[in-house]
């Protein structure tokens, strides 16, 4: 199943990526070829096969809900592109 340029544009927007027209054409072609290869999976009979999301059997990893020190506001903000008075600054959200 190939992917159309319209699909690439739609999915790119879902992923918050803006592509120029040239990239859309290239990606549609390359991703189409990959999806054609992926379509070989249709040959496999998977009736009744459970899916694997995790390769090692593990039970839930529980821990005590204890209060522990955190690394502090300064560390949390250390890599902020823009900050002010202990907060992350972002562009206008509501017009």
């Amino acid at each position: 199943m190939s992917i159309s340029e319209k699909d690439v544009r739609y999915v790119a927007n879902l992923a918050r990526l803006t592509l120029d027209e040239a990239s859309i054409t290239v990606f549609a072609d390359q991703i189409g070829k990959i999806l054609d290869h992926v379509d070989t999976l249709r040959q496999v009979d998977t009736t009744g096969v459970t899916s694997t999301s995790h390769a090692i059997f593990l039970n839930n990893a529980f821990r005590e809900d204890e209060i522990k020190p955190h690394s502090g506001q300064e560390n949390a903000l250390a890599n902020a592109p823009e900050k002010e008075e202990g907060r992350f600054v972002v562009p206008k959200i509501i017009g």
Partner: protein
Amino acid sequence: MKPYELTIGAAGELLKKKELSSKELVSAVFDRINDVDEHVGAYITLCRESALARAEEADKKIAAGDSSPLVGIPLAIKDNICTRGIRTTCGSKILMDFVPTYNAKIMEKLDATGMVTIGKTNLDEFAMGSSTENSAIKPTCNPWHLDYTPGGSSGGSAAAVAADMCLGAIGSDTGGSIRQPASHCGVVGMKPTYGCVSRYGLVAFASSLDQIGPLAKNVGDAAILMNAISGHDPLDSTSVPRETPDYTASCTDGIEGLTIGIPKEYHSSQGMDPDVAAAIKSAVKTMEDLGARVVEVSLPHSEYVVAVYYVIATSEASSNLARYDGVKYGFRDKAAEELMDMYQNTRSQGFGAEVQRRIILGTYALSAGYYDAYYGKASQVRTLIGEDFKTAFESCDVLLSPVAPTPAFKIGEKINDPLTMYLSDIFTLSANLAGIPGISLPCGLSSKGLPIGLQLLGNHFSEETLIKVAYNFEKHADFSKEKPKIGKRSTP
């Protein structure tokens, strides 16, 4: 022999006998980097000052009787592993100035051994690639022939070990990213069982596949590094609670009676280089000479491995990389006036082409209407691939195959053809899908003088068996002493 040429094991002996100081060793490694890294391009960041200070501390510890096998040993760390106070770029523009405020668990563990971090090594952006050409910073060249890629994504770590710019290195393996560059650079690389090493502080690519592991000059050194980094970590809920064995104890003679399985599907795989086929045939003969029994086994779902992997890995990546939004850390397009523009511009300018391609493929595979056909189907076939291994390990102890169908390929050769690049990962991907361990070790040179690697795979937590078989093979057919002569690129 120059100090930088030493293995971890040999350097450790000299340090303890006071015939060499860590400061001399670390200085020699930096001199070596000075001489050759402008050609190879293995490092993104060097930590000369902190490394020399750590070396002095190590010399004091050794004088006080510290006998840790890694005290004073210079190591390189792949640049997708968080190092407190040392820039961690992931080979991406989006993390170009990111300085972690915490250490990955394995850095805490390694620091405690007294080792010395030399620097951070190059990689494909977010570890997505098989050639290190997808780094936003620079490509890395193969030390054996500078026109060729070192493989990837841990290409910087593999090249640094091969070119003697560190004594050992740490990488990460999501679909072969330790084993394949180790193979292309003629060094030893190990991907441990999923859950053996904590992923805390490893920048996530595909969380159900990622695993940290060592790259080293020989099997014994890889075992020393495995001892240092393995173990349960409460901060990684997928790490497995179990006692860590002493992996170096597996470096002993004798594999008589062990059964080695050769998957018959690997014989018929397309595009197998004749030099690789010959080297593997000779390796099988070596195993027989060592007393191992060789049997043919079947992994019937092998032909679907690439398809399953590239659906699952990209789906997980599209979700993991949603966090790069320009708000809390990393690059931000500061010109954008509205939030949505800021997200879109930050991500479009911050991610390179391969990362964008994978995010789009993964988002598509997870999107409404396509989820069942792609992610759902791939997750089911993943179960069948895991069951293939389970069945195979009922009739053999380890599986033997090439690491890659060809030796290293030329820089630029596959960069515009992602599917061909993905298909070259055919032999390594299945171990990540099944969560099993694998080791890559040199088994010959091609007619062009490029290294060829042998892969051994074992059942979950069979690292000791893999190390034992690899150690015996290496001892019998030692290619670890073959060294690259670093020349010049013919096509700069």
